[in-house]
């Protein structure tokens, strides 16, 4: 990538301090024209802060940025866009109730977006040129996550982009969609656009990127060429030691069923939700069943039906000798079920309540009540036990839940459920946004619970995680469940095609043209 011209963007000595933490400490970054540059680091390493600084969302305390060799300040996203910097956030900036064209129009300067018909034509042209077709007249709420991401990228491409920042873009895609995205990104880079690719997935960085900068605890821990560096080396730059990453646990086989879903069907409740179609599965005592799938394919609905937040009609959920369909969450809890929802704050815990009261939230069967009266002492003790056994870092049992870091709160919530000795634990995204240390604690606790004979269902988007801890895996796509197979002997591609809705191995013809295309690419 040697080039006589100056770097597309270069920054030096970037430091940003927040009241509690130094998010970026003397960070340097250098991206050439047409280069696909990876920014690696685990959660909390300072990746988000750096990219917010580059996109003008946040201002650094100190440090200098050069754009095409000239020093610049980027005080706002508008200025960043003016320079030619585009950004796709992990959480899309899209409006569900507006059309694709209207969404894109709102992100463009007023004069470029005056004529919506003309804009729709441009959208179509650009999207097809880069192999990311979208229908400009569709309402966003009817689109899949992959299609939504395309809108975000196209919105950037319509603005003479010269640096595209993508924040964890593959976390919401199936492996096949990832391939398609990489294809488009390579085409873009070949045309001279620089790309900053933020990720913590090493194999993706190896296949796509020309350069990588690794962040750890807010500082640059190394630069490398990912095409020639081993994943182990990159991993050690990321986390500082080689033992913590990618640890797999012994797999077990079990055949004593605990919970069975029989042809579970459910209409969506939310207008933007998914219908569940004919889901059947069995989870056995002493095993972890992993359910993969891109978010929004029925995971939320399934979790609510399992937890009892939503009731089903008929006899579709069997648990030991009970039919759970009409039982509310409290009744299911009495039968030994526990659930860890995806949203830690605002479902798993009440943000403004202390940890002690958050322990009581679901732990009320653990002797914390005396004829409907609260036993304050016992309530504090229960929370303290969770804090001790799961190494939750907190100033006190009175600390409000929202004041804890994501990892610590997640340890508390999972600990709260595990200490109730559940026979069945259902977990959604147990380590989402959690640092490696906490993730390891959580994984070990789940394995220990499994080994003690409990059945566990883990619903997660993170395939690596599922392969690490599950004994059997299935995937959800558009409300349908794939076959479930033991992890031993299962490969990533197989689960990937399940996630894309191709369930039948013997089926020679994939279901649609689009899927055929996806398979061809993968």
């Amino acid at each position: 990538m040697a080039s006589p011209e100056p770097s597309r963007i270069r920054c030096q000595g970037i430091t940003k301090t927040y009241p509690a933490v130094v998010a970026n400490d003397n960070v340097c970054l250098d991206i050439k024209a047409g280069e696909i540059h990876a920014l690696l680091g685990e959660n909390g390493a300072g990746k988000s802060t750096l990219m917010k600084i580059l996109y003008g969302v946040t201002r650094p305390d100190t440090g200098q940025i050069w754009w095409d060799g000239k020093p610049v300040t980027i005080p706002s996203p508008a200025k960043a866009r003016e320079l030619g910097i585009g950004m796709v956030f992990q959480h899309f900036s899209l409006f569900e109730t507006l059309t694709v064209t209207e969404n894109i129009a709102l992100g463009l300067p007023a004069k470029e977006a005056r004529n919506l018909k003309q804009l729709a034509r441009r959208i179509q042209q650009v999207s097809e040129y880069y192999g990311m077709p979208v229908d400009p007249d569709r309402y966003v709420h009817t689109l899949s996550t992959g299609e939504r991401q395309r809108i975000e990228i196209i919105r950037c491409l319509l603005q003479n982009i010269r640096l595209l920042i993508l924040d964890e873009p593959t976390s919401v895609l199936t492996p096949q969609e990832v391939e398609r995205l990489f294809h488009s990104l390579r085409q873009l880079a070949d045309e001279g656009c620089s790309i900053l690719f933020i990720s913590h997935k090493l194999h993706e960085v190896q296949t796509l990127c020309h350069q990588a900068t690794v962040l750890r605890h807010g500082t640059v821990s190394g630069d490398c060429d990912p095409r020639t560096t081993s994943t182990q080396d990159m991993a050690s730059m990321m986390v500082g030691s080689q033992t913590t990453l990618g640890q797999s646990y012994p797999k077990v086989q079990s055949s004593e069923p605990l919970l069975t879903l029989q042809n579970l069907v459910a209409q969506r409740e939310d207008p933007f939700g998914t219908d569940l179609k004919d889901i059947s599965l069995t989870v056995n005592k002493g095993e972890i069943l992993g359910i993969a799938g891109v978010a929004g394919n029925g995971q939320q609905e399934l979790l609510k039906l399992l937890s009892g937040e939503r009731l089903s009609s008929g006899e579709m959920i069997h648990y030991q000798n009970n039919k759970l369909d009409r039982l509310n969450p409290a009744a299911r809890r009495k039968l030994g079920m526990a659930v860890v929802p995806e949203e830690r704050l605002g479902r798993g815990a009440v943000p403004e309540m202390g940890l002690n009261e958050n322990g009581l939230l679901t732990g009320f069967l653990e002797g914390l009540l005396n004829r409907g009266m609260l036993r304050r002492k016992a309530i504090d003790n229960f929370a303290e036990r969770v804090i001790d056994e799961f190494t939750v870092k907190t100033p006190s049992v009175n600390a409000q839940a929202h004041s804890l870091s994501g990892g610590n709160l997640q340890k508390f919530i999972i600990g709260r459920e595990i200490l109730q000795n559940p026979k069945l634990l259902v977990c959604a995204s147990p380590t989402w946004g959690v640092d490696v240390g906490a993730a390891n604690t959580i994984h070990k606790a789940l394995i220990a619970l499994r080994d003690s004979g409990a059945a566990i269902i883990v619903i997660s988007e993170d395939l690596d995680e599922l392969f690490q801890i599950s004994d059997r895996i299935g995937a959800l796509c558009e409300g349908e469940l794939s076959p479930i197979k033991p992890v031993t002997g299962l490969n990533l591609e197989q689960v990937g095609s399940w996630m894309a809705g191709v369930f039948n191995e013997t089926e020679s013809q994939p279901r649609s043209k689009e899927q055929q295309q996806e398979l061809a690419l993968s």
Partner: protein
Amino acid sequence: MDIELITNVLFAMVRSGTPLLLVALGEVVCEKSGVLNLGQEGMMLMGAVTGFIVSFSTGNLALGVIAGMAAGIAMSVLFGALALGLRANQVATGLALTIFGAGLSAFVGTAYVGKPLTGIEALHIPLLADIPVLGPVLFQQDPLVYIALMILAAVWLFFRFSRPGLMVKAIGENPESATALGLPVLTVRWLAVMFGGAMAGLGGAYLSLAYTPLWAEGMTAGRGWIALSLVVFASWRIGRVLLGAWLFGLASIMHLVLQGMGWSISSNLLATLPYLATIVVLVILSSNASRIRMMAPVSLGKPFHPST
């Protein structure tokens, strides 16, 4: 019923629907931007009392109308300062605005209770006014009725065709995304709140200057709240606001109609009609939860924190 009675009833319906139409229009814009202002009643009262005092003191009705709107805006700024500036709970702030407006209007209006005023007179629109039924109903009204209908058309066009209209909708759905795109969330919300204030002030001034040209404590009699229900009734769609305003207008003059038809029912019992009608309508429209979720601005009532 003869045609003359029907004409009279429809005429009265349009008249009594007009303040509801104005207030509801203001609130729809406000809610579409994601702000729930329950202070309509208080803003209306301030509009009514200010309009009356200014007109009474200057003898100029137009000035009164403008002053009423200004009072509504001033009240809405108070709301904005708390709900937008200080991120206070919008429901509580709206309630406070209503209680405060009721108190302040009663306070400044004490000396004007029972004072006579010649109200805004009807303006016949040439030619159109002569159409049978439709003419008297729609084109022999006072100027504020026409202005209300023009504002309705303007708001409809605004949301249908303009980029700022699109912006308001986007901000009401997802202020975080809107900020990420560089849309001025707070500014738009401020303007929407102030428009709501202006409309509520105008609606109040309509009551004290045209509908019943006098000032009485609490004279809005819950119209601000009915207008809020009207927004739910209209499912946040502009066209249906008009339909709703007229329907509620009809409900609020029903007691006159029934008495006119010779029914001997207590006027107090009949006066409960518009309130009961409001409840019935709310129940019918709210019972489909997913429909409400589909139509209501997603971020409605949630305070927005515009910084990292």
